[in-house]
């Protein structure tokens, strides 16, 4: 049952990652896949570990046509940091959690930016960093939806992770 929610949410995230967006709005695309992976890594590290996070990043690389390993590496680091912060996240108040998500998404963007500058095409605009903010804005909704879809959490939506 839980496996079903995990797979469905990941699939939806992949679809959201490549839905066409118009012009400059494309830069504001939230890091959907990172949010979903982050949620499950903290919720259930036995099912979704850093290895799974890495695989998801690799698939995203293929989907976006960037060099294989770029998203995978960024996803891996974020998932690892999340697994370190896991206990703290459980106890933290909601606002605290969201700010952790904001910093993690900027870490993700920073890693991708560095890799892209070293080996790929350098990123042309400063609007690139807006994705962190949009991730932060949609996070509460994504979190809420994932809690709804999480078979063990339906009872207490807001309380713990």
């Amino acid at each position, binding site marked *: 049952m839980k496996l079903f929610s995990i797979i469905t949410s990941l*699939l939806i995230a*992949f*679809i959201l*990652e*490549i*839905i*066409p*967006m118009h*012009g*400059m709005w*494309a*830069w504001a*695309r939230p890091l959907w896949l990172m949010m979903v992976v982050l949620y499950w890594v903290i919720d259930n*590290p036995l099912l979704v*570990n*850093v*290895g799974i996070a*890495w695989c998801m990043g*690799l*698939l995203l*690389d*293929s*989907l*976006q*046509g*960037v*060099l*294989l*390993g*770029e998203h*995978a*590496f960024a996803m*891996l*680091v974020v*998932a*690892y940091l999340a*697994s*370190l912060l896991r206990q703290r996240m459980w106890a933290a108040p909601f606002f605290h959690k969201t700010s952790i998500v904001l910093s993690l998404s900027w870490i993700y963007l920073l890693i991708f930016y560095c*890799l*892209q500058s070293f*080996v790929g*095409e350098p*990123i*042309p605009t400063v609007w*690139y960093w807006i994705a962190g903010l949009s991730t932060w804005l949609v996070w509460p909704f994504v979190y809420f939806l994932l809690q709804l879809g999480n078979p063990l959490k339906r009872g207490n939506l807001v309380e713990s992770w």
Partner: protein
Amino acid sequence: MIKPIFTQKATAGWRTLFLAIFSILLIILNLHYSDQFFVRKILSVVVAPVQYVVDMPVKLVHRARTTITSQEDLIKENQRLRAEQMLLKLRVQKITALETENKQLRALLASSNVLENKASTVQLISVASDPAKQEIVIDQGQKQHLKLGQPVLDAYGVFGQVVEVDPMTSRVMLISDRRSAVPVENNRTGVRGIVEGTGFVGNLLLVNVPKTADVRVGDLLVSSGLGHVYPMGYPVGTVVSVTTVPGEHFAQIDVAPSAHLDRTRLMLLLWG
């Protein structure tokens, strides 16, 4: 000291380290083999269904719209198309004459440029979601024997070239991508130049043109056929502005692409 029972964190650390090294290895291998990298080909097949799923609603809306169209509209459209076809036929009559004349002239000049190209149609299935790239995914690949560097056109002009061939799909880099450069010549004066992409749809640059060169707003730039990627004589763009900066050697010339880079779903693939 309590003996640790849960060693999960420790293994996660090692696993992360191993995967990090593995990612860097992958990036290096991918850089080296670029699109011939076999892992890329396998993954492209894995993710293709997601691309089709995203494309499905667009296709459904399109189909619904065609089924809903009234008969009256269809008749009107039919009439319009008939008139258009007549006009085009008229133009083709002239072109056949010109073509034979051109062939004779070329024979006189002993040049062997081929003007006719074989073409087939391809469908767009996905737009690159990475905004730093101007790429699209089309529905044909190795199965249809697509080749790297094959030029793609739409009904209005040069569109781009194939940069990655996967088993079922391929990636096409648009001429507005920052990596793209198209050798062109000015249709009015014959002056040659190179049109580069800027990373933004609808904005190209004609580069390295001296300030004194005769380039005016409204000039049509056609592909010159140099560089052996794009065939000769197809429209690439029109000049929208010419700015000269004092102290600079070259003028800054903005070009609007002729092809409908962000609106076409159907494109033409040219075969050598």
